[in-house]
C-alpha cells in the first residue's frame, strides 16, 4: 500500500508539472479522465491511492501554474492577477524572481493551511451558515472599495460591468464547455499578449536572482492571505481569485508582495477545500469534487494522510517550479518575444474551440477587447475580476 501511495505521489507530481507548465490543460480534465477510467485502476489499487494522485497533481499544478502565467502571459482564473505584476518584473529582467515570489507564497500557504486546519475543522460547521448569508454583501463592499480606490472611477465601473455581464452570460452559455477558459484567456492573456506584440516588447536579459522583500512584510501578507482565504474556502462559487481581490481591498499591496499573496491564497484555498470536504461534507474546488467521489466517507485518518502528501509534494514542487522558472528565464531570451506572443495567441485561439466549442471564440474576442480597453485606459486589471464576482454576487443574492 505504502509503495502504491508513493508511486501515485510521484505520478501526480509529473502530471501536475505538465498541466501547470502547458497553458490550457486544466487539472480537472486529468481528474475527469482518471474518474472515467477509475474502474480499471481500482482493480489494482484502492480509492485512497487515486485520491493521493489527484492531490499531488493539484498541489504541484498550483505551484507550476505561475510559470506560464509570468513568462508567457497565459493565465487561468486562479493565476490571472499574477500576470501584470509578473509581466512587469519579466520586462525588468526579473521573471525568475517573480516565480520565486509566487513559489514562496505557495509553500508558506501550504504550511499555514496545515497549521490552521484543526481550528477550522472545529469552528467551520458553526460559522459556515453565517458566511453564506454575508458573502454577497461582503463582495459588494469589496467591489465598491476597489472602485473608490481607483482614480478613473467611471472607467473602473465600466470595466467591472462589462466583465461582470460577460461573466454572467458566459457562465450561463449552455453550449460552451469549460466557460472560464475563453473568458480568462481573453481578459488576462491574449489582451496583454496582443499589446506586447503590437508594442514590439523586447524581453531583457533575465537575471537568475531573488527579489528582495522584507521578511516582516511577507509575514503581514501571509496573515492577510489567511483572513481572505478563510472567508472563501468554505463557500461555493468563490475561490482564490476572490480571496486575492478581498486582500487587495483590505490593504494596499505592492506588486512583489502581491505575487507572494496570490501564491499563498492559491495553496491555502486548495488545502482548505479538502478540510471543507471533511468538516462540512461539501466539495469546494473541482479537485475536492473528485477526492469526494473516490472517498465518499472521508475519514480524519485519510485527511491527515492527504495532508502529509500535500507537505511532501510542496517541498518537491518548490524545486521543480524553480528549475522550470530557470529554464524559461534562459529560454525566453533566445527566442523572439514578439513572435512568441503571436504563437501563444494563436495557440489560445486554436485551443478555445477544441476545449470550449466554436461559440467560445466569441467570448474570447469580447474578453480580449475588454482586456485591451483596461490596458489602454490604465485602470487596475482587478476590476476585470467582475467576470467572477458579479455572477457570485447574483448567486448569493438570489
Amino acid at each position, binding site marked *: 500500500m505504502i509503495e502504491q501511495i508513493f508511486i501515485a505521489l510521484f505520478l501526480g507530481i509529473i502530471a501536475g508539472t505538465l498541466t501547470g507548465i502547458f497553458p490550457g490543460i486544466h487539472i480537472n480534465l486529468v481528474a*475527469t479522465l482518471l*474518474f*472515467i477510467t477509475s474502474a480499471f485502476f481500482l482493480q489494482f489499487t484502492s480509492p485512497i491511492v487515486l485520491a493521493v494522485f489527484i492531490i499531488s497533481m493539484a498541489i504541484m499544478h498550483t505551484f507550476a501554474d505561475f510559470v506560464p502565467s509570468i513568462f508567457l502571459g497565459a493565465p487561468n482564473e486562479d493565476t490571472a492577477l499574477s500576470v501584470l505584476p509578473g509581466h512587469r518584473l519579466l520586462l525588468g529582467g526579473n521573471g525568475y524572481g517573480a516565480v520565486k515570489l509566487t513559489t514562496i507564497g505557495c509553500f508558506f500557504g501550504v504550511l499555514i493551511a496545515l497549521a490552521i486546519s484543526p481550528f477550522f475543522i472545529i469552528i467551520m460547521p458553526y460559522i459556515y451558515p453565517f458566511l453564506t448569508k454575508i458573502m454577497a454583501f461582503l463582495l459588494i463592499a469589496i467591489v465598491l472599495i476597489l472602485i473608490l480606490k481607483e482614480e478613473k472611477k467611471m472607467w473602473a465601473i465600466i470595466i467591472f460591468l*462589462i466583465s461582470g*455581464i*460577460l461573466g454572467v*452570460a*458566459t457562465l*450561463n*452559455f*449552455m*453550449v460552451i*464547455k469549460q466557460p472560464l477558459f475563453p473568458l480568462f484567456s481573453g481578459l488576462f492573456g491574449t489582451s496583454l499578449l496582443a499589446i506586447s506584440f503590437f508594442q514590439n516588447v523586447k524581453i531583457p536579459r533575465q537575471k537568475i536572482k531573488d527579489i528582495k522583500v522584507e521578511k516582516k512584510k511577507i509575514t503581514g501578507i501571509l496573515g492577510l492571505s489567511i483572513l481572505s482565504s478563510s472567508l472563501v474556502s468554505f463557500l461555493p462559487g468563490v475561490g482564490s481569485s476572490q480571496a486575492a481581490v478581498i486582500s487587495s481591498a483590505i490593504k494596499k499591496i505592492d506588486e512583489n508582495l502581491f505575487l507572494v499573496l496570490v501564491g499563498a491564497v492559491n495553496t491555502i484555498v486548495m488545502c482548505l477545500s479538502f478540510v471543507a470536504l471533511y468538516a462540512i461534507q461539501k466539495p469546494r474546488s473541482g479537485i475536492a*469534487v473528485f477526492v469526494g*467521489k473516490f472517498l*465518499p466517507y472521508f475519514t480524519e485518518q485519510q485527511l491527515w494522510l492527504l495532508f502529509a502528501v500535500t507537505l511532501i509534494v510542496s517541498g518537491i514542487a518548490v524545486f521543480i517550479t524553480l528549475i522550470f522558472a530557470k529554464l524559461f528565464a534562459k529560454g525566453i531570451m533566445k527566442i523572439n518575444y514578439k513572435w512568441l506572443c503571436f504563437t501563444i495567441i494563436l495557440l489560445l485561439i486554436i485551443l478555445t474551440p477544441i476545449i470550449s466549442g466554436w*461559440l467560445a471564440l*466569441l*467570448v474570447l*474576442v*469580447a*474578453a480580449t*477587447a*475588454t482586456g*485591451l*480597453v483596461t490596458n*489602454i*485606459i490604465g485602470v487596475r486589471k482587478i476590476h476585470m475580476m467582475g467576470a467572477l464576482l458579479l455572477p457570485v454576487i447574483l448567486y448569493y443574492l438570489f
Partner: protein
Amino acid sequence: MKKTGKVKTSNLLKLSLIIALVGTFMVVILANNLEPSTKTIDSINERSIDEWIKVQGNVTQETDVSGLKIITVNDGTASISCILRKNVSYNFKDQRVEIQGKITDYKGDIEIDISKITVL
C-alpha cells in the same frame, strides 16, 4: 510622431470598446437563446458531468426536501433524478415535461440540476 501615436491609441481604444460591448451583447443574446442539445437519459454517464442538456419525459416521482424539489423523470430509455432549487408549489407528478439543466454528480449519483422546466 507622438500625435500619430496618440491618435492610434485612441482609435484602438474606441475599436476595443466597441468590440467589447458588441461582443458582450452578442454573448448575452446567444446565451439566452441557444438551447443545449436534446439527449436520451440512457446516454447520460460520468463523461456528461458539467454538460448542459435538454431531456423530455414523464415525471414518475416527486419529493419536496427543504426548499428543493426532487423529481424523477423517465423518457422511456431510463430514469434520472432532477433537482429544482426553488420553492415551487406546482405538482409535476405524472406530467410530461421538458427539462434543461446541467448534469451533476451528487454522492456518486448522476443528476440534472434544473435551470428551466416546461410542462408539455
